[in-house]
């Protein structure tokens, strides 16, 4: 399982971390419009899970989706270009942060609607397998999403039809400002178990632990097992959304934030590398991101004349809104 190679795992969490920090800078600079939902602090989950997947396996992400897209192998430069709304972006600048997708590496998209992606991924994995491909999938969602009926329906469908989907709950303690205890009656793992799905809690701050749990589940799924759930306990280091950088919302006690931030997946995984290894990765990541930002900024904005490109895959021409 070379993908669990500590250096690679470190590279992924470091890449996501620095990508996010760069992206936040670009939000502040007004280059990225609309803001982002930073994944800071949660990098170990995307990294650990995606390291257990193959290129042909499928994933869906969330509104907090940059980590998922990057960890699954999307090009950071085209991802950054997407956030900057450029023609060279993964989605030709049509998607932005919450819809970034790269079907070529199995990313069916971040998704701006909480709880919506689970059933989509289930259908996609089922379809690929029906066509004879040995594919599994992972769908990421937050602790808030387990209160969405549509996700619970997806649990049932996947369990019933034994579709090999890893349901990855990123429990960062809050849905925006709502603490998990104020929203989730019972437990998150209990909700999976209710549908006959194995469920485990894992330390989301440790990329290797996440990877181990995901790899075990994926292994069982490839051997013909049904869906499973992993609840990765984590902490969001930054704002729910960058708008909180401007408008202060009061909902997390400062001590909690400090404690939460003290277990840093980048530091935890970095600690497993020698200083030299770490420095080499850091330098390489920095170079990659320098190039990514430069690429994004040098890329053209899309031509407004193509605003409705791809509205219909069939090529149907939509009537314009003008008189």
């Amino acid at each position, binding site marked *: 399982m070379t993908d669990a190679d500590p250096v690679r795992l470190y590279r992924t969490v470091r890449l996501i971390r620095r990508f996010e920090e760069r992206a936040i800078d670009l939000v502040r600079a007004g280059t990225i419009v609309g803001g982002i939902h930073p994944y800071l602090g949660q990098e170990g989950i995307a990294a650990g899970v995606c390291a257990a997947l193959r290129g042909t396996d*499928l994933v869906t992400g969330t509104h907090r989706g940059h980590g998922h897209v990057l960890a699954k192998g999307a090009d950071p430069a085209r991802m950054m270009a997407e956030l900057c709304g450029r023609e060279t*972006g*993964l*989605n*030709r*600048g*049509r*998607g932005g942060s919450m*819809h970034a*997708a*790269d*079907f*070529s590496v199995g990313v*069916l*998209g971040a998704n701006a*609607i909480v709880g*919506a992606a*689970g*059933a*989509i*991924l*289930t*259908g*996609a*994995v*089922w*379809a*690929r397998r*029906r*066509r004879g491909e040995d594919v599994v999938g992972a769908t990421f969602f937050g602790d808030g999403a387990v209160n969405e*009926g*549509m996700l619970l*329906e*997806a649990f*049932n*469908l996947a369990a*019933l039809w034994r579709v090999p989907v890893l349901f990855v709950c990123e429990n960062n303690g809050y849905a925006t400002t709502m603490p998990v205890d104020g929203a989730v009656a019972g437990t998150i793992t209990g909700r999976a178990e209710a549908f006959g799905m194995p469920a485990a809690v894992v330390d989301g701050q440790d990329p290797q632990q996440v990877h181990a749990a995901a790899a075990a589940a994926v292994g069982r799924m490839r051997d013909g097992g049904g869906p499973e759930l992993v609840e990765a306990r984590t902490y969001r280091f930054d704002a729910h959304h960058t708008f909180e950088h401007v408008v202060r919302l009061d909902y997390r006690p400062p001590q909690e934030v400090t404690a939460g931030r003290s277990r840093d997946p980048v530091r935890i995984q970095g600690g497993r590398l020698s200083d030299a290894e770490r420095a080499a990765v850091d330098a390489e990541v920095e170079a990659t991101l320098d190039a990514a930002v430069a690429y994004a900024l040098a890329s053209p904005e899309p031509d407004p004349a193509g605003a*409705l*490109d*791809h*509205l*219909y*895959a*069939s*090529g*149907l021409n*939509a009537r314009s809104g003008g008189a």
Partner: protein
Amino acid sequence: MPRLSYRKALTRALADELARDERVFLLGEDIRVAASHVTAGLFTRFGPERVLDTPLSEQAFTSFATGAALAGMRPVVEFQIPSLLFLVFEQIVNHAHKFPLMTGGQCAAPVTYLVPGSGSRTGWAGQHSDHPYSLFAHVGIVTAVPATPTDAYGLLVSAIRHDDPVVVFAPAGALDVREDVDFAALAPVPLGRGVVRRAGDDVTVVAVGHLVHDALAVAEELAGQVSVEVFDPRTLYPFDLDGLCASVARTGRLVVVDDSNRSCGIAAEIIASIVERVPLAAPPRRVTRPDGAVLPFAPGLDRAVQPGRAALTAAIHLVTKDGT
């Protein structure tokens, strides 16, 4: 020539497409035993991999279909009740419809949503009698409402082959229509192309779905007094505006009869689109459900809320009253 019923036409379309294209599969509630009759025989013929009975989880199975479509399949989802489309509105409108643009063209979501028995099913009352096709025309999802068995076959086949989501409404009021058909001549009917069902000179009546038959009956009845042209758009979105303009340009008068609610319904759209382009000799009229309609249970009340022949006749008289 053999007689083909509307319902059997749907079955035949499904069977032909299942046979033709491995990517096509059906899912929905009770479709194995074909509670709605539409999938009769298909489970036996095509097996459980192609005909999937679902739990009562409309949102999940609708999005499951989206996911399967993104991954290369061509699902057909049957809904037992028109209002189930309300329940999956987000899944269709906010996801299936938006994926191609939002991903910058990385994918397509060719899903067909089939509603056998839309509109009033007498005695099924408020929550089972909606006719929400105008909602889909508003959001811009291809929307077909076939009136005849031939079109039911042809539009459903085209829907399944279409690369974007398509909703096919099969009005309850049309399900029992039968037609003499040369089976060999059954063919796809292009989406977005209407048809003149009856030629006339004095007024163009646009009728949607089962109301095409009412419009034809009214036209016959009025034959001595008014020469009525009946235009069946067949697809509400995209709408065959060129076809309709050609008709209205000749008759100079327009009546639309449509079984959805009045405000922002397809009748409003048709009238607006025509008056933007074609001068009329008299103000256009529409015959629809009332604003905000909820169908009451008692049959007499249920009928009172639906557009009918008497109201259509009155509308025709209104637009033609200043002579032709």
